[in-house]
C-alpha cells in the first residue's frame, strides 16, 4: 500500500514540510510532483474578496482515499499527500495541496494530475465566493468533467 497522508483542515499548510514528509527515508524516491491551488482575486470578471469552502465530513475523506487507491493501482507510487482546506479563505491563500512521490517523473506527473482531476469532480467540496455584490456558489465547470473523463478512455 502506498504511503499516504490525507487531511481536511481549516489551517494553512507548509508545502516544504509536506514535501519533506513525503520524501523522508525513502531511498527510491527520485521525483516529487506537487500541485498547489490558490484562491484567485478574480473569478471570470467578478472580483472575489473571500471564499468559503464547505465539505461533507466523512464522505470527503472516503472519496479522496478512493482516488488515491485508483492512482496507486495505475502507477508505481511511493507516497501521496492530499491536504484540502475548508472554511473562509482570502485571495492568495492556499486551498489544496497534492504531492506525489515516485522513482521516476512520468508516473509522478501523471498521478498528480489524475488525483487533481478526480478531486475536482469526485470529492464533495463546494466553494462560495464573496465579492462586492454579494456571495455566489461557484458553478461546476464542464472543463473539469472533461479533464476527469479523459482518464477513462
Amino acid at each position: 500500500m502506498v504511503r499516504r497522508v490525507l487531511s481536511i483542515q481549516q489551517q494553512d499548510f507548509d508545502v516544504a514540510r509536506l514535501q519533506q514528509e513525503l520524501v523522508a527515508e525513502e531511498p527510491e524516491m527520485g521525483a516529487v510532483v506537487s500541485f498547489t491551488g490558490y484562491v484567485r482575486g478574480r473569478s471570470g470578471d467578478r472580483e472575489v474578496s473571500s471564499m468559503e469552502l464547505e465539505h461533507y465530513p466523512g464522505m470527503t475523506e472516503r472519496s479522496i482515499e478512493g482516488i488515491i487507491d485508483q492512482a496507486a493501482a495505475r502507477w508505481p507510487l511511493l507516497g501521496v499527500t492530499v491536504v484540502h482546506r475548508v472554511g473562509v479563505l482570502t485571495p492568495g491563500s492556499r486551498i489544496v495541496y497534492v504531492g506525489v512521490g515516485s522513482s521516476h517523473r512520468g508516473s509522478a506527473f501523471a498521478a498528480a494530475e489524475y488525483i487533481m482531476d478526480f478531486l475536482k469532480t469526485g470529492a464533495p467540496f463546494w466553494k462560495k465566493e464573496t465579492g462586492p455584490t454579494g456571495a455566489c456558489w461557484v458553478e461546476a465547470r464542464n472543463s473539469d468533467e472533461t479533464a476527469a473523463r479523459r482518464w477513462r478512455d
Partner: protein
Amino acid sequence: MIKVLFFARIREQLGCDGLEIGFRENMANLAALQASLIAAHEPRWEQVLNAPNVIRAVNQQLADLDHPLSDGDEVAFFPPVTGG
C-alpha cells in the same frame, strides 16, 4: 431511522442542514424517500430536489434514484462539486 443531509446551495435553498425520518416500508429506494420528503414540505422542496443536476449519496457513496434503502442509512443531497 434515515439520516438525511443537505449541502451547499441545496442546503441554503431548503433552509435545512438535515433531518431524521423514521424508516417505513414505503421507503424502499432513494426515489421513494425523496417523494416522502417532497410530500412533507413546501413546494420549493420539489423544485430543489428534482432539479436535473442534484447529486445523491447513500452511506457516503454516490447513488441513483433506484438505489435501495435500509433502516439506518445516511442519505445526502448536494450540487455538483467545486473543490480543489
